[in-house]
């Protein structure tokens, strides 16, 4: 889960949700504002995604001895909160993807990595080593290559709608 739902849901929805193209075509100004809204949704999806992951870490840490309480109920409440925040990220991702192309939206979700590195340093006192920073950079570059490579071959045409449905490590 941590990661995969966004695109899958977006994929499932994009197959079925009709985008009101007629309204978009007739009013040029609505294209611009629609794009602004989509970008805002993308930003929010990143924000909620990072917050959700940090809250999940917080929920997990609360169960750790000696201070923690490892009973199921003590986990449920913070976990439900974390998942609720996380799913706001997924919802915003779906809204963003309806207007933006995946090759535009996806690279921006790498901000997730940066947010999580900073957040886990700030709130959980984790060490951000050179290796971790370098590794994250490599993963990001690799994802770019995979997405770009997929664009020419499978994003076009009618069968291409679900092609880029990789996992989303972000919201």
């Amino acid at each position, binding site marked *: 889960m941590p990661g995969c739902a966004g695109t899958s849901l977006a994929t499932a929805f994009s197959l079925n949700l009709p985008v009101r193209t007629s309204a978009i075509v007739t009013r040029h100004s609505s294209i611009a504002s629609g794009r602004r809204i989509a970008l805002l949704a993308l930003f929010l999806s990143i924000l909620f995604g990072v917050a959700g992951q940090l809250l*999940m870490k917080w929920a997990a840490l609360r169960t750790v001895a000696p201070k923690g309480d490892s009973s199921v109920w003590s986990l449920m409440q913070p976990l439900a909160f974390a998942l609720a925040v996380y799913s706001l990220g997924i919802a915003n991702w779906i809204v963003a993807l309806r207007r933006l192309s995946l090759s535009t939206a996806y690279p921006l979700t790498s901000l997730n990595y940066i947010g999580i590195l900073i957040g886990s340093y700030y709130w959980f006192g984790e060490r951000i080593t050179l290796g971790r920073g370098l*590794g994250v950079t490599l993963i990001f570059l*690799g994802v770019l290559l995979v997405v770009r490579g997929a664009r020419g071959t499978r994003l076009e045409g009618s069968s291409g709608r679900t092609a880029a449905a990789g*996992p989303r490590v972000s919201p």
Partner: protein
Amino acid sequence: MTAIAWTSLALVVLLGTAGQLALKYGLRPARAPSPTLRVRPAILIWFGTYVLTTLLWIFALRSIPLSQAFPILGLQFALIPLASSLWLDEEVGTMQWVGIGVIVLGVALVGST
């Protein structure tokens, strides 16, 4: 304790990959339109893996730093194209293979530090 946490992180990655494959398989076009709304078993499998990986993920986070565990999830970006070329007959181009290699390298680096 740590070994169990790392095992569950590995399971999150593997089950997550399996779940995406199941979802994609479950979303394939129907041969004949059906008048009744019916959820395919493959989609239920995806949902099951989703619930299970969430729990395993929380368990892994109890002892693995988030700044280490989260980037490792990125391994799925490599595994899913790999698996879909193997089992879903999807085409994976040269550039994608290079990308997959780079991701594996990055995950190895994050995992070892």
